[in-house]
């Protein structure tokens, strides 16, 4: 997700309480925007964006907690939990992508190549993988390049074992998504976003 947009309508000489409410509303809108994808477990990009939006909302509320009504502490707890649930989901997505790359990796007899050439090749593979999987999943090219270095590629037995680990991780991802979904649906039933608006509207 791109950098947070600057919030319009801020007045440096107005009170912190007034401006905090404007910023919090802007961050809440971002959560609502990405929240539209909460019901689709396959939209990992958008679920990641929802996580970032939740994190920005949480940080904003924490930064300005003293200038907002006390009820905001309940909101912070809920948003923190949503962020953690989506964080666990994202960690599974990253692990799944890494495992798939490692499993595809053939062990090569790379003795003919010099080290520099091998590094360049593994970087090229990492960049190609990032383009395929997405920048939000593969954020660390150095790590992926290090994993894909031909001279340390997994043996056939190790690849078979990684395949089992991948299946486990896929299952864990399902469980993480379910935990998030149950929580998200409960908040929707309780009209959570509207409650936050009401807290922010209160003087």
């Amino acid at each position: 997700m791109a950098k947070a947009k600057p919030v319009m309508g801020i007045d440096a000489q107005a009170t912190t309480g007034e401006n905090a409410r404007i910023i919090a509303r802007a961050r809440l809108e971002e959560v609502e925007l990405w929240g539209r994808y909460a019901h689709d477990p396959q939209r990992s990009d958008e679920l990641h964006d929802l996580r970032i939006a939740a994190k920005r909302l949480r940080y904003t509320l924490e930064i300005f907690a003293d200038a907002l009504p006390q009820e905001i502490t309940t909101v912070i707890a809920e948003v923190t939990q949503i962020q953690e649930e989506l964080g666990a989901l994202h960690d599974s997505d990253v692990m799944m992508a890494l495992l798939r790359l490692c499993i595809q990796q053939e062990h090569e007899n790379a003795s003919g190549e010099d080290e520099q050439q091998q590094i360049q090749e593994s970087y090229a593979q990492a960049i190609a993988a990032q383009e395929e999987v997405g920048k939000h999943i593969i954020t660390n090219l150095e790590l992926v390049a290090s994993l894909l270095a031909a001279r340390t590629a997994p043996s056939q037995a190790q690849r078979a074992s990684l395949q089992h680990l991948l299946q486990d991780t896929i299952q864990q991802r399902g469980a993480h998504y379910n935990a998030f979904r149950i929580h998200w649906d409960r908040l929707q039933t309780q009209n959570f976003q509207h409650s936050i608006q009401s807290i922010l509207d209160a003087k």
Partner: protein
Amino acid sequence: MHIQFSSPCAAIDIGSNTVHIVVARCAPTTLDILADEVELVRIGESVTATGAISQEKLAVTLATLRNYKALAEKHSASPIFVVATEAIRQASNSRDFIETIHRETGLAVQLIEGTVEATLTFLGATYEQAQEKHAPSQLGVMDIGGGSTELVTARQEQITWRTSVPIGSGWLHDRYLSSDPPTHDEVSMASVFLTTYFTGMPIRRVPPSLIVTGGSANSLFALAKHAFHLDEAPMRLTREEILRCEGLLQALPATEIAERYKQPVARARLLPAGALIIRAVMNRLRLDEITISAHGIREGVLLAYARYGEQWLQRIEQPATSNENHSSGTQQKKEDEQETFLLHGQQLLQDRTAKLLEWREAVLASEDIEAVHKMRVASRRLRATLDAYEAICDPRSFKKIYKKTKEIADLLGSARDTDVMIQNLQAQTVKAPAEEQVGTQWLIERLQAYRLQHQQVLEAFFKTFDGHAFKRQIEACLSTEGVRHGKS
């Protein structure tokens, strides 16, 4: 010294986990307790599940209150105060609940705010210690309830700060720790949540000692006393003893904990959550030991009544001292709300930058992977603060410092994400089937190799990183002269 006690009074508190009564003869600074009973009703369970208090919970509460009223009358206690806390504050049908209690039992329930709850708890939890000759001049009090946790700091017996957070043992159990005993993954998720939440909570003055009250704290002490043969007094628990308790609670089902250590089963189910909250707050306050108090909000109500008479609640709702910093509805909060955005921003950026820089040496020392995590969190908070103030920052200075902050966050992020992957895989290896072991081990080794390589990059960066220049650039970003109005 002769103490003049009043005739008996009673105080009942309807909490998220328990309904609890104390009957006592009261004086402004002490109590002569005649009866003390508690019933684990778990009203919060139905509020967490449906948002409302169920008919079943209402029926149990009514039955309990009728018994308590009879107990109070047996001691000729009058008046009988009833206060209700977090679960009732959160419940969508709280008004019906309170009206039904009044109609059915004649008892008037006061629904009190979290900060009032914090003050009453402080009075109750500290009154015994305040009588001692060498009472500490600065301390904190924490009350872990079922649906909320109250935190108070005080200096010379005067409250300096108080807050109420909506996380209690019942809440944490229902959200995260539903297995019996809780699984490793559940405990891990709950711990991450608590660390994240409490790290983000601003505490104005970190107290050097902490008194903990509430059912979880007292039951945990009772468990530790039985299991590790601790003395009855003083009621203290060290970090190590709490960790040992956690080990038991995560290994044995609640029925076995209840049987072995003389605990009600329903309480034993909540204890893993209570222990985790206590340890998370100890970590936040950097404490290695806590003192347990058997007293709390009910004793606080009775002491407040003895001190202030019929106006006790109004007096508690007011700021207790001119220098008190409440986190809600009080003087400091009003000041924070009224302070200009610019001044507040300058202070915030200064604080956040200092927080970030304080972890630099620990990251360079590379002895504790948590240092990387803490510095990363500090960098994220600094970025979030910059995001909030971007509209009124000098654009050129902002761009420069934002880029630098992002660079720091990314460097630390690469290290932290790898640490977490390694930790998770190591935890998984313990219970992984044989066919997964060889691949997992290969991956752990590769990740460790990358992490070592990345540590060199981190160290090279922070060795040449000029913290003073960074601070100056942050200050220039939101200087009074360079500030933009922001409205565009």
